[in-house]
C-alpha cells in the first residue's frame, strides 16, 4: 500500500498518485460490492481478508514460474494470468463452501466468528508451513496482466484500466443479480427469514449461493491485487485493511446498495490513502501518530455512521421489483446526496423557462 505514497509536488507525481489511488480504490470497491452481496442476505462476513488472500495467493502461485533457489512454493506452472484469475475466484468459492457447511445453518453470529477465525488461520498457515507459499518472505515478482506488451512507463494506466473494467463488470453482475428474482429472495430472507421460508424458499441454499458469489468476487479482487502489486505476503492481508476497512466502506457508503458500496470505497479510500499526503504538513506531535489516528477515525466512522446514519451516504432504495410501484411512506429517508440532487433538480426546474 505504502508504495502509493509519492509527493504531490509535481504534476506528474499528482497524476501518478491519482492513477495508483484509483486502481487501489477500484480493487477495494470490488471487495465492497462482494461483501454487499453477502450482507444483502444477512451474512456477517468478518473474514473478507481470508477470501482476498486466498484469491491473491492462488493466482500468484499458479502464474509464477517454478520456484528457484531459496524460493519454495507449490505449483509455479506459469499459466496465463486470466486463467489464474479464474482459479482465484474458484478458490474463493471453495473456501466459502467449506466455511458455509458448518455455519450457515446455525446462528448468524457463528459465521461471523468462524470467518474472523479463518482469516487468522490462513495467515498462520501461510506464515509457518514450509514449501507452501514462501512463508513470511511472501511471493515476489508476480507479473501484471499484459505487462510485457506495454513499452515504457505507461503500464500504470493499463493497471487502472484493468481494475476499472473488472469493477464495471462486477458492478453490472451484482446489479443484475440484485434485480433478479434471486436477489429479491435474498432481500426477503434478510428482512424476514421466517416469511421467506414460509414462501417456500430454501434459505440455506440462497445464503450459500450469496456467500459463494461474494467469495468468488473477493477471490477475483485478490488476484487483481496480487498481479497489480507484484508482491504479496501474509502481512498484506491484515484484518484491519482486508476486512474492517471494507466494512467501513460499506457502512459509510450505504449497505445493501451497490452505488453506495462504490461511493464508500472512494470516500473511505481517499481518507485512508490520502492521509500520508498531508502527514508532512502536520505538526510533529500529530504527524508522527497519523497512522494510529487514522485507525481511530476508521473505528469512529463505523460507530458514528451506525448511530446517526445507519443507511449510509446513499440509502438503499426500498423496492420489490421495478414493476411494482410503492405507496407513500414505504421509502427510506433520502440520503445527503439524494437531497442535494433533488435540490439541484428543483433549482434547475425553477430556472428553466416554463413552456
Amino acid at each position: 500500500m505504502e508504495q502509493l505514497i509519492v509527493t504531490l509536488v509535481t504534476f506528474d507525481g499528482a497524476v501518478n498518485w491519482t492513477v495508483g489511488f484509483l486502481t487501489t480504490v477500484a480493487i477495494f470497491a470490488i471487495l465492497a460490492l462482494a461483501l454487499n452481496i453477502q450482507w444483502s442476505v444477512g451474512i456477517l462476513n468478518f473474514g473478507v481478508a481470508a477470501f482476498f488472500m486466498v484469491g491473491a495467493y492462488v493466482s500468484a502461485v499458479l502464474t509464477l514460474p517454478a520456484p528457484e533457489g531459496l524460493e519454495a512454493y507449490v505449483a509455479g506452472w506459469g499459466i496465463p494470468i486470466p486463467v489464474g484469475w479464474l482459479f482465484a475466484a474458484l478458490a474463493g468459492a471453495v473456501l466459502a463452501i467449506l466455511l458455509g457447511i458448518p455455519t450457515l445453518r446455525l446462528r448468524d453470529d457463528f459465521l461471523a466468528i468462524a470467518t474472523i477465525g479463518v482469516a487468522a488461520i490462513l495467515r498462520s498457515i501461510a506464515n509457518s508451513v514450509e514449501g507452501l507459499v514462501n512463508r513470511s518472505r511472501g511471493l515476489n515478482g508476480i507479473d501484471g496482466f499484459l505487462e510485457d506488451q506495454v513499452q515504457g512507463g505507461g503500464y500504470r494506466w493499463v493497471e487502472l484500466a484493468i481494475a476499472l473494467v473488472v469493477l464495471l463488470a462486477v458492478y453490472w453482475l451484482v446489479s443484475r443479480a440484485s434485480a433478479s428474482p434471486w436477489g429479491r429472495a435474498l432481500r426477503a430472507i434478510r428482512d424476514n427469514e421466517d416469511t421467506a421460508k414460509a414462501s417456500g424458499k430454501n434459505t440455506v441454499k440462497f445464503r450459500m449461493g450469496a456467500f459463494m458469489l461474494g467469495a468468488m468476487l473477493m477471490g477475483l479482487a485478490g488476484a487483481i491485487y496480487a498481479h497489480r502489486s507484484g508482491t504479496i505476503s501474509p502481512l498484506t492481508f491484515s484484518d484491519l485493511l482486508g476486512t474492517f476497512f471494507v466494512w467501513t466502506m460499506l457502512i459509510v457508503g450505504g449497505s445493501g446498495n451497490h452505488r453506495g458500496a462504490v461511493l464508500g470505497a472512494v470516500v473511505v479510500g481517499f481518507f485512508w490513502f490520502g492521509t500520508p499526503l498531508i502527514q508532512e504538513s502536520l505538526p510533529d506531535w500529530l504527524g508522527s501518530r497519523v497512522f494510529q489516528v487514522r485507525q481511530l477515525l476508521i473505528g469512529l466512522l463505523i460507530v458514528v455512521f451506525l448511530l446517526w446514519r445507519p443507511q449510509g451516504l446513499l440509502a438503499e432504495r426500498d423496492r420489490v421489483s421495478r414493476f411494482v410501484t410503492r405507496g407513500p411512506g414505504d421509502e427510506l429517508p433520502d440520503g445527503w446526496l439524494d437531497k442535494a440532487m433533488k435540490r439541484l433538480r428543483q433549482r434547475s426546474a425553477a430556472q428553466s423557462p416554463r413552456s
Partner: protein
Amino acid sequence: MGLTLVFGVLGIGDFAHGDKMGWGMFLAFFVVSAEGANLGFAGGRFGSLSFGWGLIVGLLVAMIGVALISVILERLVFRRLRAAGGGFFVFAIASLGISIMLRAVIQLIWGPSNFRYTPGIHPAIEILGGIKVKPDQFFIVGVTILAAVLLYWLLYRTRFGKAMRATADNPGLAEASGIDTNRIRIGTWIIAGFLGALAGVMLGLQAEVRFDAGFRLLLPLFAAVILGGIGNPWGALIGGLGVGIAQEVSTQWINTGLKPGIPFVIVIVVLLLRPRGLFGQVR
C-alpha cells in the same frame, strides 16, 4: 467469562472484549510503571511473587477503568442502537468499530512496544515430580477460581443474578415483571468489564503487555465460549481450559506456527457436532 456473560445476557457478541482486556492490562501497567511510581504506588513484593502492592492497586484501577469504559459505551452506543431496533448484526459491527478505536488509542498513548510489569526473569520453582511452576501462576489460578466462584454466587444466589438471567431469557417479560432491564444491562457490562480487566492483568502478568494482546486472544475466547456453551459461566471456564490445553498440547505434533489455528478448528468441530456447546442448555 465476561464475554459469555455479555453474549448471553445482552445478546451482543462483543468483539471489543479482547481490546478491553488490553485496556485493563495497560491501565494496570500505568500504575505499576514509572508514572505510577511518582504517585507512590510502586515497590515492594509479596514473598516470591514478582509483584507488590503496585499491581494490586493497578488491578483495581484497571477493573474500575474498564467497567467505566464499558458503561460509557453502553450509554453512548449500544443503548441508542437498541432503541433504534438494531439486531445482532448492528451490535457486532459497532463493537468491531469500538475494538479498532480502543486499540488505536492504546497505541497512541503507549506506542507499539511490549512491556512487562516487572523487568527481569522470574525463576520457576519446582513442585511435585519436577513440574516447574512460577509463583505468579499459582496466584493467577487462584484468582481465576475465586472469580468463578464469585460469579456463580452472583448469578445463582442473588436477586440481581436472578434478574440478570431473566433478562437474558426474555427481556420483554423481565421488563414487564418490574425488572429495570437498563440497570441490569449496565450491571452486566460492569461485571464483564471487571472480569475483562482481571483477565487482561493476569495475561499481562503471565506474558507481556502488548497493544494487540487482547485482540489476538479474541478467537480463542470465542472458541472457549462456544465450546462451553454460550451464556454459561462454568462452560466458559471449562471451555477456556480446554482451548488453552488443546493449543499447548498440539505443539507436540504440529508446527508451532499453526497454534493460533487450533481454536478455529475447535469452533468448527463444535459447530458441526454440538452447536450448543458442551454445557449448553436446550431451550
